[in-house]
């Protein structure tokens, strides 16, 4: 009975086993020499401490978020790149032999990624990177860094550009350009509006003039018709006795044209003075 208890106590102190969580993997070291990699989670047996020890590592995909850094593009523009790296420990033994901890692994990753990133981005003009080739660049960077990182038992799964922005002073220039671009657009809209409005007004004025001219034309035709009709009526009437018309019209004209400023110089032959200067005999003749 006592023996059993003693054995149980001894076992629980030395713990000749270990458990690995679903998210973990481990390396067993015997007197400091790695003898086995355990990637299956659950309960495992080992020799008690200090004969064998277990180093546990993360099995999940890990995040490395590096601080933003300036890189230079092919067209010599500076870009502030803030990227993240997804990585995972695939070979815990090599990981243990080279970098040991996640923190020191991240330092290595940072070195690898930024040298790769500089090389790739240096090949591409800024706005090709922003718009068209971002994915290819990142895929290349991922593949190249992955090759280098495998020396540390690390797999680089994905390198993503979280942010790619212009440095502050360049940003100002972009804002200026945006502003002038918009000002140009605003001007264009306004002058287009003016253009259309002026066209429309001119068209309107033209139409107005045409309408009035057409009306004037009509009016003249109508007046002409009226005059013609009147002339015909006069002619029809007056041709019945043209001589009398001439006589009557002449008299009317005298009446209208003489006024008190006029001077009338007459000779005795004037018909009007006929009775004044001729003898009765002459009159009878």
């Amino acid at each position, binding site marked *: 009975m006592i023996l059993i208890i003693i054995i149980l106590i001894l076992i629980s102190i030395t713990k000749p086993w270990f458990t690995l969580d679903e998210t973990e993997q481990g390396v067993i070291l015997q007197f400091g020499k790695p003898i086995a990699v355990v990637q299956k989670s659950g309960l495992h047996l080992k020799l008690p401490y200090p004969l064998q020890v277990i180093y546990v590592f993360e099995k999940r995909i890990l995040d490395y978020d590096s601080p933003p850094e300036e890189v230079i593009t092919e067209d010599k523009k500076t870009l502030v790149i803030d990227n993240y790296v997804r990585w995972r420990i695939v070979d815990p033994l090599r990981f243990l032999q080279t970098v040991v901890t996640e923190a020191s692994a991240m330092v290595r990753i940072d070195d690898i990624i930024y040298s790769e990133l500089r090389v790739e981005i240096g090949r591409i003009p800024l706005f090709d990177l922003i718009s068209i080739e971002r994915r290819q660049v990142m895929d290349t960077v991922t593949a190249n860094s992955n090759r280098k990182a495998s020396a540390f038992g690390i797999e680089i799964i994905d390198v993503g550009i979280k942010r790619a922005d212009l440095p502050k002073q360049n940003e100002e220039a972009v804002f200026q350009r945006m502003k002038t671009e*918009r000002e140009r657009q*605003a001007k264009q809209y306004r002058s287009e509006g003016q253009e259309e409005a002026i066209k429309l007004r001119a068209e309107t004025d033209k139409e107005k003039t045409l*309408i009035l001219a057409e009306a004037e034309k009509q009016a003249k035709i109508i007046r002409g018709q009226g005059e013609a009709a009147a002339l015909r009526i006069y002619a029809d009437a*007056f041709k019945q006795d043209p001589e009398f018309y001439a006589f009557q019209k002449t008299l009317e004209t005298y009446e209208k044209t003489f006024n008190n400023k*006029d001077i009338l110089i007459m000779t005795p032959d004037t018909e009007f003075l006929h009775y004044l200067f001729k003898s009765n005999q002459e009159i009878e003749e």
Partner: protein
Amino acid sequence: MNMDNNEFNEFDRKIIHIYDSKIVRLLKKLGYLVIVIFLAIYLLTGIYIVGPDEVGMIKLFGEFVRQVPPGIHYHIPYPFETVIKPKITEVRRVEIGFRTLSTDPIPRYQYFPEESLMLTGDENIVDCQYTVQYRISEPYLFLFRVKDVDSTVKKVAESALREIVGKKDIDEVLTSGKTEIQDETRALIQSILDRYEAGVQIIAVQLQDVQPPEEVVSAFKDVASAREDKVRFVNEAEGYRSEVIPNARGQAEQIIKEAEAWQEKVVKEAEGDTSRFLQVLQEYILNKEVTRTRLYLETIQKAFPLVQKYLIDSSTASQDILKLLPLTGKDGSAVVY
């Protein structure tokens, strides 16, 4: 004495022995009871409830062994089996470019321009604030494949939106392209996360506020008002047109009507004049000589009193006229008959 002592001792020993064995038995029973109770309590700690919005993930010594639906369940107590209960129906939400500080009583936000300012495909900068909604689709992957899925979703979302916006023009981003951007970004985030086997489903990417950066916002607003101005200018011209054309048509009608009136008038006048002439003529025909003389003299009577009259000899008229010069009246008019 000795014998007495011996007797007493023997008696004593018997009694002690009896008591002894009774106590030991009692203690033994009590001990078992305590052990049983502790064992029972220990075993009862294996009971757990999975809520309706959760799923139970059971691990044996850290190794995932089974997944259970909502309800009351039992697992082998600690340290053998443990349970994790992720909320799988919960919609998770990540805010990018802003954080909601409080919603009550008035919403207050804090803004993060370094998250929301991004370059567009036509080399402009745009300010996008957006949210990403997602939920756990594969609890196993969610728990065991990627460390800190929530921050992963956020970073992937930032990267994805920038990639998509980087392919668009600023006008597209600001106006028509919003839905497209949301859909494309959602699909891109999903495909990246699927590659990680993150076990989440992106429900929606929602652009909350998309606007030009503060520094240039007034220039953008002016473009909008310029567009309004354009419409206004054209409308004003249309207005001018709809005022002028009917007016002109009215004027035209007036001109024509005046002409028509004039036509009628001259015809009527002609008719009146001629009718008078014809009536006079009828009378004249009856007594030609008398009427003629009378008309002549009547006219002379009316017209002659007005004028100054000079009489000269007809044989020497050409010289005499010169003597009378100048003949003009005040306005220079003169008549030679």
